């Protein structure tokens, strides 16, 4: 099932778009996961990155390609992406836990320490999560980026929290 049919991305589509991240890179800590598998004319992710870790190039409809060695997991691209399609995943957070950061433009804005329900790409609740960090500096232009702490096994699934 493709994103065009069901409205959410499959693991195979990420692999086909060469946007999957290697286990070796995940082991090193936070990294940007770009989930943008259709050729659309857009490149703010590329210009947002100071480390030359995301490349779109010419033509502008190229799929964004992540250079996982250059990526520091800083998250500057997350709020810049008009499609809200970039996430920061840290599978090396602890032995049992991972963190996932995502843009969240709904009210109420989660607050650090609160417990929310973490959902997958389809909006299904996967697990409880604790809000680890909420960033909304001026540069993010009103797109808060929320980081949640979750059990490690859900790191590839969790991409948001359930709207309250």
């Amino acid at each position, binding site marked *: 099932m493709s994103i065009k049919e069901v409205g959410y991305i499959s693991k195979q589509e990420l692999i086909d778009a060469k946007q999957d991240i290697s286990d070796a890179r995940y082991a090193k800590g936070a990294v940007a996961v770009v989930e943008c598998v259709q050729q659309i004319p857009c490149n703010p992710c590329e210009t947002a990155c100071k480390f030359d870790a995301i490349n779109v190039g010419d033509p502008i409809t190229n799929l964004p390609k992540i250079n996982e060695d250059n990526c520091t997991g800083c998250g500057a691209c997350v709020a810049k992406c008009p499609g809200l399609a970039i996430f920061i995943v840290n599978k090396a957070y602890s032995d049992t836990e991972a963190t996932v950061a995502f843009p969240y433009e709904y009210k109420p804005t989660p607050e650090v320490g609160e417990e929310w329900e973490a959902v997958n790409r389809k*909006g299904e609740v996967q697990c409880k999560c604790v809000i680890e960090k909420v960033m909304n500096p001026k540069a993010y232009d009103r797109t808060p980026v929320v980081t949640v702490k979750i059990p490690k096994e859900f790191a590839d699934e969790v991409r948001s929290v359930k709207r309250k």
Partner: protein
Amino acid sequence: MLSKDLLVVGAGPAGLATAIQAAKNGVKDITVVDLNMKPGGQLFKQIHKFFGSHEHRAGIRGMDTGAAMLEEAQSLGVDIWLNSACVGFYDDKVACIEQGQPDGTKKIVFMKPKTIAICTGGQENVVRFTGWTTPGVMGAGAAQTMVNVNKVQPGKKIVMLGTGNVGLIVSYQLMQSGCDVVCLVEALPGINGYGVHASKISRAGVPIYTKHTIKEVKGNGPNGRVSEVTIVEIDPKFNHIPGTEKTFEADTVTLAAGLKPVSDLVKLQDIDLVFNGPFGGWVPVHNEKMQSTCKGIYVAGDTTGVEEANTALEEGNVAGVSIAEELGCITAAEADAKRKEIWERLDGLRMGPFGERRAAAKKEVMEQFPGVRA
């Protein structure tokens, strides 16, 4: 009778860009008329960050681009008449304008501009089903205006018909304003808009029913308001498949079934039109300068084929440069160089699986250009 160098009809992205670009290239006496109370066309209800590249102000919210363009137009001395409609043309391109007065009344004004740019945008299509006139059934644009401009919810539980970018984006924005979206319904086998927009809807747990349409809306709510919506699966020929109905409780239905170009004013002039499916209907034939077949009249934006704000803006830039050329403010060589640069960006916006159809449609329209008639 007023005489002007340039009359622009419509203060949306295309019209404002035309006026700004013309003014920047030396055109002096410019008036933009718009029938709305506020300029900016539909830009001010686009609260999301736009796609595109740096040159297109990508990553900037549409409403902020609107504000920036308005400020630029004003700083360049462009005169913007609001609550004012260009209601017709007389011989010799004399425009008849219903000019809004500060006290809310209108005054008829005649204007003879040296050049005219028609940038009247697009208009939403309607879908008819049993109960489509029930209060609570409305255009997606109306719902978007309510939440993003007037800051009031059009309803609490909403069914969206259509999964083009408008359907997807407005669904998301309704949820941002605290409404619940029950589901999205799409007649085609696939989601029509960008997957990244659909992903936001999916992450919020909202189902998208492709190969479905609305069969009936019941208005048993207070004062006859929408109370329930029945959707049904359809076959490849769009016939309802009996027995596949699903009924949802909802108080609002929003229609996002595409737009068509507004070409009323274009039709009043000696301008060739052509029907173009991908562009949504009848559009004025034009060339790469955004000149219509009538000398002195230019066209830009959704009027020339429904696309999106960035392409409208760039077409306006082209029209503005061409108008400056026609009025002798810049040389043909200067105009060509500027247009080349803008066209490169336009071509960029019309690439990829979502843009190719529009690129081909634009080519088809321009290939039919027979030349300018005096």
